[in-house]
């Protein structure tokens, strides 16, 4: 039981580390390039900005959910929970 718990904790920490690398890359690559365009939309095309905002947040959530599920499966040998 104790060994199982420490194994789960180790897998979780590994997941966090891999995920943190992905997310840091994402911050610097994607968000950096998007910020100028989004600011322009926010100032001059507010309705388009509102639509783009919803598409971005839902799109990112779907992608992140898939990435985290894939990481869970990969690092726990096929188990997702």
């Amino acid at each position, binding site marked *: 039981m104790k060994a199982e718990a420490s194994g789960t904790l180790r897998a979780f920490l590994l997941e966090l580390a891999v995920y943190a690398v992905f997310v840091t890359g994402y911050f610097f690559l994607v968000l950096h390039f998007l910020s100028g365009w989004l600011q322009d939309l926010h100032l001059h095309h507010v309705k388009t900005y*509102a639509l783009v905002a919803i598409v971005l947040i839902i799109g990112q959530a779907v992608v992140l959910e898939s990435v985290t599920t894939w990481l869970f499966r990969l690092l726990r040998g096929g188990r997702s929970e």
Partner: protein
Amino acid sequence: MFFPISNSHISPIYLAVSGFVIGILGGFFGVGGSFIAGPALRAVGLDWNFAIGTDLAHIVGKSVVAAKRHRALGNVDLRLGFIMAFGTMGGAEVGAQLIQMLKRAGNVNLVVSIVSIAIYVSISSFMIWEAWRTLQFQKKRRPRTKVPGTTAKEDESSFSHRTRAIQRFHLWPMISLPTSGVTAISLWVIVLVSFIGGLFSGFLGGGAGYIRMPMLVYVLGIPTHLAVGTDLFEIIISASYGTFSHATKGNVDILIALVMNTGAAIGAQIGAISTQYFAGPKIRLAFVPLPLIGAAIVIYTLMTGHKL
């Protein structure tokens, strides 16, 4: 990190960690978590209008992740979620109009504060009473034995006799919710429940999951695990509507919401998976502090004049 839309400097690690904590709560309890996200964004100097709008956008992303996970676990009633979305949006509009009326009358802060404290404390008191009674009843009935074949998802409530009376209320059209195990219930009861949730969302801000999740359990008779998952699914639709409305008014910094969502994505999954290990009454008992935290924040604001 500089966020040009709201003209603010905020650490991305702070945002991701805040999102992670709110994600766990959201995934486990089916709430938006605005009572934490709003103050967390205010604490780093974001203006109130951006804090409210950005929080709603972040709620959409976090709810997508948590609802997807709950759907995979069989905890989402899509039919109920779609019906509720309409009532919620109507209620949110009426709530926002009420706020405008109170603003014109000049006593919006006092009225909203008193109403919210009364509601938060009532929900917590009722849930602690009900969940405790149900747990005591279960202990007496099944002393120290686990019935083979039972799972944490099988739910019961000491309030279920009232719930059954509500389900017997015949007002056309009657619909069935097979996923939730409800054979027949009036459509108007569902619309009314979602309308009240939306009303509080528009009136008090946030997603109002602290009132909708208990109503799903006690009024509609939805099992707790399904109430959590369905509430999250419904929040995606209603919070998207709120995000669009706030974004057109210039109140959403989507870059901040996207960064928060990177932490929320992993937190929401942990929260959703954790529900599988707890029975309904225990989830409801653990829910009790959430409305009380909301009440404490409002009391602090009333006494000091500073918004958290």
